[in-house]
């Protein structure tokens, strides 16, 4: 079932000359994990704003073509309903904290309060999310005094608590250390397993290779490549666009040069490990 469909979509921000997105066509299916990659300035964040319905409801400008969210034109959606339908987590951890709550626990509860969730259910859901994101030690702290990485995790928890069907996530790990990054990816994957549709913008290509079902490569406002993760991330021409490929992919190509028997290209660590094991004969 399609969850979001883009037909010939182009967009430019108000008071600007150039289109940030041009001729975008894609059908996104429900329950899949989409990785969105591309060099900086290729339109990834604008793409998120489009998927989230911020375009045209918050950012005006020129939108042409059709954006269908669950079959209904985005222009006909009530923007308040969209905000509960599609969760949105973005890069900057500092602006995502509300600034009106004095503990992390209350901060996470804010979205649920706004949705009118009754107290007992509200507390249970916040507790659940706190456990999921391992925020137990932070719940009594003032969210305004946390570090960037901690704020990002709290922002993440706050959106997850709202339990929307679709999540648009724009570079959530750029401030995080490797361990927290891995944890965030595991959680995103868990959400996918719960049936949510995930759109994730991310530079950490190894993790996209590991988890995404499909990958969209944006370049200069257009979809340059798209399709199954294994197909897209084994395309060496991405390097010319300024997109990093997984180390596993590059290793797999190197192996192919020394071993003609290798006929597929791996994109993840475990796949390339299997290929090596076959060669070494372990």
């Amino acid at each position: 079932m399609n969850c979001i469909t883009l037909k010939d979509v182009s967009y430019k921000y108000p008071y600007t000359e150039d289109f940030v997105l041009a001729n975008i066509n894609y059908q996104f299916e429900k329950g899949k994990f989409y990785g969105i990659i591309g060099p900086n300035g290729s339109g990834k964040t604008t793409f998120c704003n489009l998927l989230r319905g911020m375009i045209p409801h918050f950012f005006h400008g020129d939108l042409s073509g059709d954006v269908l969210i669950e079959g209904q034109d985005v222009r006909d959606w009530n923007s308040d309903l969209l905000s509960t339908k599609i969760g949105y987590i973005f890069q900057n951890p500092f602006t995502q904290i509300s600034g009106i709550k004095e503990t992390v626990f209350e901060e996470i509860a804010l979205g649920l309060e706004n949705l009118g969730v009754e107290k007992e259910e509200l507390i249970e859901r916040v507790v659940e999310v706190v456990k999921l994101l391992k925020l137990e030690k932070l719940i009594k702290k003032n969210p305004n005094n946390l570090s960037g990485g901690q704020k990002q995790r709290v922002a993440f928890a706050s959106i997850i608590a709202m339990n929307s069907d679709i999540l648009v996530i724009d570079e959530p790990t750029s401030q995080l250390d490797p361990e927290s990054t891995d944890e965030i990816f595991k959680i995103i994957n868990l959400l996918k397993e719960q049936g949510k549709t995930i759109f994730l913008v991310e530079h950490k290509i190894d993790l996209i290779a590991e988890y995404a079902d499909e990958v969209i490569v944006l370049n200069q406002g257009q979809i340059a490549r798209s399709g199954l993760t294994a197909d897209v991330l084994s395309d060496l021409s991405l390097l010319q666009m300024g997109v990093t490929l997984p180390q596993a992919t590059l290793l797999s190509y190197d192996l192919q040069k020394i071993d003609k028997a290798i006929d597929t290209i791996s994109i993840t660590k475990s796949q390339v490990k299997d290929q090596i094991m076959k060669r070494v004969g372990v």
Partner: protein
Amino acid sequence: MDYQFVDSFRKPQVQHNWFLDLNPLSKLNIIIILAIIPILSHSWQVSVAVITFYFVLAVASNRLKQFSKVYVRLALLIGSLLFIMRAMFIPGEDTLMKIGFITITQEGVDHGARFASLVVAICGALVFYSVATQARDLMLALEKKGVPHTATYVILSSLQSIIDLGRMSKIIMESQKARGIETEGKAMNRIKAFFPILGPLFLGAISNSEEKAIAMDARAFYAPEKNTHLRELRPVPMSEKLILVIVNLAFIAFIVWRVIG
């Protein structure tokens, strides 16, 4: 996880102190009356009595330290300044002493004492209310009375943004130092370093506000449902209502007595 903390949200927020646990609006009611009494009475003795009463309340509500930390300094500064200005410049017939061209009169001293103590008493109301009531509790009480949560959000987030601006200016001062601008030592250095950051400081705050709006939208801030509250205030007990009625009636009686008498 600290389940005791989690459970605290299941019960009304209380601090086990009879005054602090009054409804924020009840406290506001009482404090407003306390602020008006010295205005109506025109006597420094009443003002001083009210000021003393704030200290008594502060002790009773376990807030003496916080209250006096701010209030004593403020009262001394404003009180002495107003008293001296009035005492020196109000003309009168009963001269107490002459210093150069300044003549201090009994009328000036009386007037100064009255005025200074009045202003200090009013400041006391503000300071005491702010230490005895958390802003978020007041907002919660207002929301319960039907004030939209957009309004309370604006107030609470403005309070936070004052703190944020302070923090931001500290960071920007650090970055000024790091690039070689002398901010230590002479006051002139500090002023010179601080001036150029004011523009960016406020521009930064404004450019953040767009993202903040998006973030709040993502938290369903504009959702059509009536919002609920994780924290709840104690329901106003009968005794509190009774006290308020008595206090208000006494106050009306006092006004009537002032007007007729």
